[in-house]
């Protein structure tokens, strides 16, 4: 993609630090993430990857510095951000479809009722049976991971944040998830007038080889700082 001065940014952090008491989860992090790219964040446990993602999601605020996500402050555009974390963020007692219909109602409260079509579409896209009557608590790890991803992409987000999406998946499952994500990037956005909007994915992982095919940029973190940013030639 030709580099222009008007490249849109999906997110930018400037001098961001996050302190929990006297523990610095993030130290003076500054990074710009271009829209339409897939960014892979690497680092050992405790490097600050999850904290970074939660900050982009708007769930935590920086102690110092500023965070700008999708042209506005992080908490103003929450429906355009999808977030998937270690925890499935789904109710164990409800089925996947019921879970998604619940979140659908939160994201689109004024929508018409037969929009279970959207929830079903998303579930089918991640490879789950929408009609499955088993509660999510009974799912296998791989199925739960996919249901969680379905919830994250339900609101048709411009920015998708994935915290260790390949954890607890076997090789086949991981490969499926990678192809899903690649496909997700090509989905047309729901009409909202912004025809130039592009989907951005930021994911963290311990296993860089899995997402190599996807990633345009690789950020390496260590002890709360970004130590390396590599652009990959595609």
């Amino acid at each position: 993609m030709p580099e222009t001065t008007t490249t849109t940014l999906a997110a930018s952090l400037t001098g961001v630090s996050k302190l929990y008491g006297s523990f610095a989860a993030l130290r003076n992090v500054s990074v710009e993430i271009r829209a339409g790219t897939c960014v892979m964040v690497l680092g050992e446990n405790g490097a600050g990857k999850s904290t970074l993602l939660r900050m982009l999601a708007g769930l935590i605020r920086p102690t110092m510095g500023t965070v700008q996500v999708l042209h506005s402050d992080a908490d103003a555009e929450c429906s355009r951000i999808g977030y998937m974390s270690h925890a499935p963020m789904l109710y164990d007692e409800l089925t996947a479809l019921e879970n998604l219909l619940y979140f659908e109602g939160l994201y689109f409260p004024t929508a018409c009722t037969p929009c279970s079509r959207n929830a079903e579409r998303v579930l089918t896209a991640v490879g789950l049976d929408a009609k499955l009557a088993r509660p999510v608590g009974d799912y296998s790890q791989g199925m739960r991971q996919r249901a969680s991803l379905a919830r994250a992409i339900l609101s048709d987000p411009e920015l998708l944040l994935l915290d260790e999406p390949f954890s607890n998946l076997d090789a086949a499952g991981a490969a499926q998830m990678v192809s899903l994500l690649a496909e997700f990037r090509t989905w047309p956005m729901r009409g909202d007038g912004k025809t130039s909007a592009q989907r951005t994915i930021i994911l963290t992982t311990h296993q860089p080889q899995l997402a190599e095919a996807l990633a345009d940029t690789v950020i390496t973190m260590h002890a709360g700082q970004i130590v390396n940013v590599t652009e990959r030639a595609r």
Partner: protein
Amino acid sequence: MSYLRIVLHHLAKDLKLEWRSRDAITGMLFFSLLVVVLFSFAFDPTAAVSRQIAGGILWVAILFASVTALNQTWTRELRNHVLDAQRMAPSPASALLMGKVLANFIFVTFIQIVLAPLFIVFYNLHALGQAWLLLLILPLGTWALVMNGTFFAALGLRTRNRELLLPLVLFPISIPALLAMVEATTGILTGDVDPVLWMKLLAGYCIIFTTVCVLLFETILAAE
């Protein structure tokens, strides 16, 4: 109105969750029953005396039963970090609170409907005042308890000793409401006291604290 719709959406979810597992209701029911029976042993009432104390015992039983439900009211949201996903949704956070309060209100009211005949039986009660007023007092009192209780249960979500903190914070704040509930109920049972003033106090309490809880819920949810 879209706010109401979202509240009902949350309510439907909470009712469905409870229906699937029936944890809270069974616990509350059994606990309230035990409290009623224990109090009958502790205070062996004659008919006249029973009318004086039944109001207090009823509301203490409801208070304890409510606390057992309130302690686990946010458990399912915490368990899989569903709360994070709910925070990220654009719907107002206070709607989540109101949905849960309504659900808890329904559960406690259900317990009351089961307890009331038992009370009448164990204490040989019949009201000397206007019994129909009880239909107003019970919901008002219940609302006062579950509104503050659900809010403080959320406040204590990420604190240590969460289960201890809830009654410690809830009981002092609920004292005016408890007084009003007990006085109004006793007033109706004994016919001695006009309960209307207490009902007005209770209604005022509910309005004030519902407003404060709704306004401050977003604050405590985002506190980190």
